[in-house]
């Protein structure tokens, strides 16, 4: 009997478009997706379990290894949770340094996301152009933190090191150039007719679904929900800066992509203001914290806005120097939860476009 037959395509775990080791088992009808089953866990290292056997300070490098593209934001979320648990006041200068390094991390992450998205839809040049600027930022991050990606820069109560001589000027110069570079990305990637045809009205998310499925970050904001923790619940000293939260209207792949581009501009704004303000702030970069950290018995849940979305740390302390339980709310992981429904009915090529627009980091998904 002659009939069409659905077949299964293993998309990943080794696939150039999955940004790591992530598998989607696609049931296809020709090139159209009938069902998609995401399978993650190929990079599961058990960081939550490992943390239970480490002291509070020793956990910091582990947080780097989750979202290694914006490591500082992961550090920041963790130390903020511990600080809240212990009631530590962070010195002002440290807060500024956290903002600067954190926003720089966000920029590197977004620049990479922009470039990789261009690569996902087939434009190789955009990818390499974005890497050009990322390299400059990486150099700056390296000079500040000693490491390009896994920074481990935040400390409980402050940051590890003060800026070196002239570093702020270098950063300032790069931030002056940044709008020009962003314009270049817009010219090459965003404005491209084919790029827009590939991404507009693909993988649409309504605000209701986004909220219901706990999506966060640019994915949530692209569907028009104004929920950026930096504005909604300003942590640290974010209330001192003047910036906007870019929102999308359609909630499609293009909006998610463009939200990131616009967020880069806002990050540049924040960094510029922080550079201005930090020059007047002097003082310690780390609060007086005991050598051995023993937070009081209790639990805490603290969340900050990472580059991928809301990263939350749930920490239970039993009064010893090691966390009794640590759980991380990973934005990439939860943003993926709606993938199946998002992919249905689209073509194989759209899988790449949709997956790329969510901007996942597998280190974070699998934890």
């Amino acid at each position, binding site marked *: 009997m002659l009939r069409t037959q659905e077949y299964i395509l293993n998309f990943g775990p080794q696939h*150039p478009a999955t940004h790591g080791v992530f598998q989607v088992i696609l049931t296809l009808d020709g090139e159209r997706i009938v069902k998609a089953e995401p399978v993650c866990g190929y990079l599961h290292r058990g960081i939550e379990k490992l943390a239970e056997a480490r002291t509070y300070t020793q956990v910091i490098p582990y947080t780097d290894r989750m979202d290694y593209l914006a490591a500082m934001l992961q550090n920041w979320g963790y130390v903020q949770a511990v600080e809240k648990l212990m009631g530590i006041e962070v010195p002002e200068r440290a807060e500024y340094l956290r903002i600067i390094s954190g926003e720089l991390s966000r920029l590197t992450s977004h620049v990479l996301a922009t470039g990789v998205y261009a690569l*996902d839809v*087939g434009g190789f040049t955009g990818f*390499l152009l974005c890497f050009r600027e990322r390299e400059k930022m990486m150099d700056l991050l390296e000079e500040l933190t000693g490491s390009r990606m896994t920074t481990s820069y935040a400390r409980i109560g402050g940051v590890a090191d003060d800026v070196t001589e002239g570093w702020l000027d270098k950063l300032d110069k790069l931030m002056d150039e940044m709008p020009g570079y962003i314009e270049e990305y817009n010219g090459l*990637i965003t404005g491209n007719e084919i*790029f827009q*045809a590939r991404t507009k009205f693909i993988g649409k998310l309504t605000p209701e679904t986004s909220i219901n499925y706990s999506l966060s970050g640019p994915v949530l904001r692209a569907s028009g929900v104004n929920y950026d923790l930096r504005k909604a619940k300003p942590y640290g000293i974010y209330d001192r800066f003047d910036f906007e939260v870019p929102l999308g209207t359609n909630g499609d792949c293009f909006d998610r992509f463009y939200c990131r581009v616009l967020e880069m501009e806002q990050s540049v704004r924040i960094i510029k203001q922080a550079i201005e303000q930090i020059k007047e702030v002097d003082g310690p970069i780390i609060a007086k914290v005991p050598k051995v950290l023993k937070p009081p018995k209790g639990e805490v849940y603290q969340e900050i806005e990472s580059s991928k979305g809301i990263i939350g740390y749930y920490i239970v302390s039993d009064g010893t120097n090691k966390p009794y339980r640590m759980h991380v709310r990973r934005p990439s992981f939860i943003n993926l939860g709606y993938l199946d429904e998002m992919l249905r009915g689209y073509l194989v090529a759209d*899988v790449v476009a949709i997956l790329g627009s969510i901007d996942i980091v597998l280190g974070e998904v699998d934890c």
Partner: protein
Amino acid sequence: MLENLFVGTTDWLRSLLGGIGFLPTEIAESIVLVVKLVAVLVFILVNALWLVYMERKVAAFMQARIGPNRVGPWGLLQTTADIGKLISKEIIIPKKADKVVFLLAPVLIFMPPLMVFAVLPIGKNMAALDLNIGVFYLLAIASLSTLFFFMGGWASNNKYSLLGAMRTVAQMVSYELPLVLSLLGVIMIVGSLNLSDIIAAQEHTWLIFTQPIAFLIFFIAAVAETNRCPFDLVEGESEIINGPYTEYGGMGFAMFFLAEYANIMVVCAMATIMFLGGWHAPFGLTFIPSWVWFFIKMYVLIFIVMQFRWTYPRIRVDQLMGFGWKVLVPLSLANIFVTGIGMYIYRAIGW
């Protein structure tokens, strides 16, 4: 002197063979022909190697980097080194692959560009074979490569390869049509299928000026035919890994890779002949030999194709089909219609 470099060489060879005396003319002619075809083969391979290098350099400069610069002067030997590496690699045949077809596909993939180049007049009196129905032959052979892509994709027994192969067939079938229809305008004006006649007809006015729309359609369809970006769905790296070539390694992959460049040469040479006046020198700059002009024109087109690749993202499969059938085919039909009316009016006026 330079103008007649190759023609002179052929004549010299012919007279040398004739001078031997005891060889019948037919055998002497066929020896000359074999030499001509071997020259074409060498020419294509060398050009393909050069094009790989050129593409990498073009890409590098577009992407703010340097590109190959280690092997040989300015990295010129980079492709040679790459091919050397690929040759020395093991040929891996997947367990469930159809072995004969799997091995045959990369061998045959070079056939269409070679066959096409045999009839292309690359200079004044410089076609290895001057066929009467050149255009017809060209189109027939050029579309053969679909088959070999499909062979490779099917024989690999891999779903990604199969998807890629299916895309090749769909793409080539739907872009063959506008390609042929756009050439129809040219043939109507010239009134001949002979490539030399078509070039001769462009001595004063290149056909790109009388048939601009046909040129655009032809060029777009040609880029699609060669599976180049933005129409590189067949090997869409971020979607279906590498399409039909996924399972190929070593020399099998290299053959597909080089064939891609040979195909680009073919379509750009075709565009040069059909629309850019072939080997005719513009502005009376005849002191530059005709075959040099041919290559300059061809390389300008190739350069544009490369610029496309490093600028545009990849188009989606339904958009590709839609563009082919809804835009290019009607447009090329309209072009034929307008050409016909124009010719009728011209004739009525009596020009």
